[in-house]
């Protein structure tokens, strides 16, 4: 083998390679420059990216979200029975796609992990040319993806994310949320809890250890302590822990008489089931019946926890048994397609898809700043929550909040929750400055 000095020849070859390297990116960027904004649709279709958890603790919610998205795309393209498009107060969408383009979609699995969620969102933006990303069934993921969409210059329509931070501390101009947040949950639950359990209670929190859990714990503490409740302890549990027995045993000896489960998805199903199995609900502490509260409820979880949810209070964004025209139309078309009623996750994602499409149609463009302007301060009705407004200050929807309770005598396996009270919007509204954060300017990307 001959030894050779690579210094000169290597330099030549190296500089040739470097030349290619420097030239290559311009091939791609030159195309990007010609567009007015990231992924401007040029053909006859427009691509939306649905980024939902298909595996992990929130997989059930993710699957339901995906069903709702598919339904929304059908309705926007004029297939199916039109669902809530018929009851929606804005009549801009005619069932022929958006801005004359047919809507198509790509999907990704967030795995309920920020890294995976960002990777799949990036794939949809960079490879599949998605003009909007929506979904996410975890506030940690939603916040991570929202930041990514802001950087990339596409709109993010948050799905099931309940943390204050999504439209509070971590809000971004390109991000919009239809779902309610923990602040609203706390404000709505407070009075109901007072009526049910009185004002001298001691609460023990088990909290999912991430942004949503922290936010939920903070809001419930804030509103229950206003009532005069004490907080005995607040224990953080890892997301997706599976076995909560080690966290529930100490509750028995803590002197607390209310257990607040700041859990969601399978975590909530497991922790509630185990709490009931440990006999917490049959206990008498401080001369009062021990109570369990689940601040954020969903039908999917209630179904998973079965018998154990009876009589347990919580709040929810929407429930399929609502009798307004929008809800009925949505339940009907979802039920016809899939054979069971939609969850609140399905409802909020369906609404988000519709609201986005409608905003694009009204703005006459897909450019993020244009679409954003069309959504800001947008007042609408007929999507199942009564009169609703997209507040311009923080891109958060404001609407009535439902306080629900596990039904004592369910008539079917889907009929597990009953609405206790509809808390009017005025009671849950707060100034945007309360939660901090800066929207910043819109980013239209390339």
């Amino acid at each position, binding site marked *: 083998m001959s030894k050779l000095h*690579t210094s000169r020849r290597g330099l030549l070859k190296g500089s040739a390679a470097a030349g290619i390297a420097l030239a290559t990116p311009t091939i791609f960027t030159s195309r990007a420059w010609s567009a007015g904004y990231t992924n401007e649709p040029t053909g006859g279709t427009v691509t939306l990216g649905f980024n939902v958890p*298909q595996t992990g603790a929130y997989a059930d919610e993710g699957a339901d979200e995906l069903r709702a998205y598919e339904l929304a795309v059908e309705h926007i393209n004029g297939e199916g029975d039109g669902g809530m498009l018929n009851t929606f107060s804005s009549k801009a969408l005619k069932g022929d796609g958006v801005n004359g383009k047919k809507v198509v979609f790509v999907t990704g699995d967030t795995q309920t992990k920020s890294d995976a969620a960002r990777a799949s969102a990036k794939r949809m933006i960079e490879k599949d040319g998605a003009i909007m990303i929506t979904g996410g069934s975890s506030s940690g993921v939603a916040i991570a993806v929202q930041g990514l969409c802001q950087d990339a210059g596409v709109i993010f329509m948050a799905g099931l994310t309940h943390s204050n931070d999504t439209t509070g501390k971590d809000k*971004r101009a390109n991000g919009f949320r239809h779902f309610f947040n923990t602040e609203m949950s706390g404000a709505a639950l407070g009075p109901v809890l007072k009526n049910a359990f009185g004002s001298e209670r001691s609460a023990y929190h088990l909290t999912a250890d991430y*942004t949503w859990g922290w936010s939920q714990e903070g809001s419930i503490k804030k509103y229950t302590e206003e009532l005069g409740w004490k907080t005995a302890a607040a224990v953080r549990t890892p997301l997706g822990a599976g076995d909560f027995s080690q966290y529930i045993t100490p509750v028995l000896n803590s002197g607390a008489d209310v257990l607040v489960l700041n859990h969601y998805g399978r975590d909530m199903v497991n922790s509630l089931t185990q709490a009931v199995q440990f006999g917490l609900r049959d206990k008498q502490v401080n001369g009062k019946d021990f109570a369990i509260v689940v601040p954020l409820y969903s039908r999917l979880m209630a179904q998973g926890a079965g018998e154990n949810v009876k009589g347990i209070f919580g709040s929810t964004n929407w429930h399929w048994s609502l009798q307004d025209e929008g809800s009925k139309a949505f339940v009907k078309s979802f039920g016809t397609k899939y054979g069971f009623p939609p969850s609140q996750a399905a409802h909020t994602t369906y609404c988000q898809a519709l609201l986005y499409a409608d905003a694009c149609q009204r703005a006459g463009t897909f450019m993020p700043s244009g679409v954003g302007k069309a959504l800001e301060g947008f007042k609408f009705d007929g999507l199942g929550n009564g009169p609703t407004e997209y507040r311009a200050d923080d891109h958060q929807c404001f609407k009535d909040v439902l306080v629900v309770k596990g039904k004592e005598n369910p008539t079917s396996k889907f009929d597990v929750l009953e609405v206790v009270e509809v808390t009017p919007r005025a009671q849950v509204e707060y100034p945007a400055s309360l939660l901090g954060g800066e929207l910043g300017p819109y980013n239209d990307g390339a």
Partner: protein
Amino acid sequence: MKIFEMNKSDAILFLCFSAAILAGPILLTPIGAGYPDLLQKFAIFGIFALGFNILFGLTGYLSFGHAAFLGVGSYTAVWTFKLLSMNPIPAIILATVVGGLFAAAIGFVSLRRSGIYFSILTLAFAQMSYNLAYSVLTPITNGETGLQLAQSDPRVLDAAFGRDYGAVLPSPDFFGISMSGYPGFYFCAIMLIICFFISMRIFRSPFGLMLRAVKSNQNRMNYTGLNTRPYAQAAFVISGMFAGLAGGLMAVTDPLAGAERMQWTASGEIVLMTILGGSGTLLGPVIGAGAIKYFENIFSAFNEGILMNAFSFLPESLQHLAVGITSLFVGEGWHLTLGALFMLIVIFLPGGLMEGFNRIRNRFLKRSGDGSGGTADTVPAAAE
């Protein structure tokens, strides 16, 4: 300089490798992988795998905790962005250094044992790091949500040089070149090429030979009066630095660090990458890393609609049957495909994909057993 001296076949291998990496966006577009995020992942995990291979491929020490160094590198890089500057250079330098320091500490304890005990020790350390990052050290790591940049970060160096990012959230840039998209890929690619060069030099050096000796029979080495620990320790630190660099680059291309990067599944993934590609070979780990990332990103995105299109040439009943069967292996079932592929490779090609390439080449060249030419001069390691 002597350090840049290499024999002809190595020089050719190095140049081909560099050219292939730099032309990645063009070469990989036909298979749907030519988009910046995935290309960045290829390069970053290529670096990670190269580093892992220096430890596992050469010394035979199977570490099940390498993701810890990756995570530490990411956290370091994000903190560098927050405190010092948005320029990636300080970030990756610090990420590499901190990754190395971390590896020195863990290696110092773990390398007292070998074989399965070593693996379990590293696994335990990584899991400890993960749990620390996940809940105990939340003020530093921001727990499950992940460490993110904020507009109000101090960025001392940027401030000192009068760089103001205005009212928007800054993103890392290399003297004005944004580190997302293709420029980010080229930044990672150049790092990968540098790392490949370093790894090649280590493979060809007396030090590398010593590491192989550690693998083949450590006891005999000890009986001859040679203390092998410093060599293993050095290899461990070097591979930790590679991992730290990879973690830093992940933060450069996407300024967010999450604890799940340190989870044991991430450590297992790098073992899979190395074995799949061929441990102990130069190119193998990079190829393995590429293959696994490709599966993760492309196969996992196939949904029924895409399959229906793919099988549209079949009659309808057959189409549904074909879709029904294949849909088990794509989408959320991509792990199944990966598992099957991994089993096939371990059973039939214990030397990984590289062994497969060499067998094919040898068949064409009618040369058996020689297999020189840069990549195949090491004995394929059994997957232990």
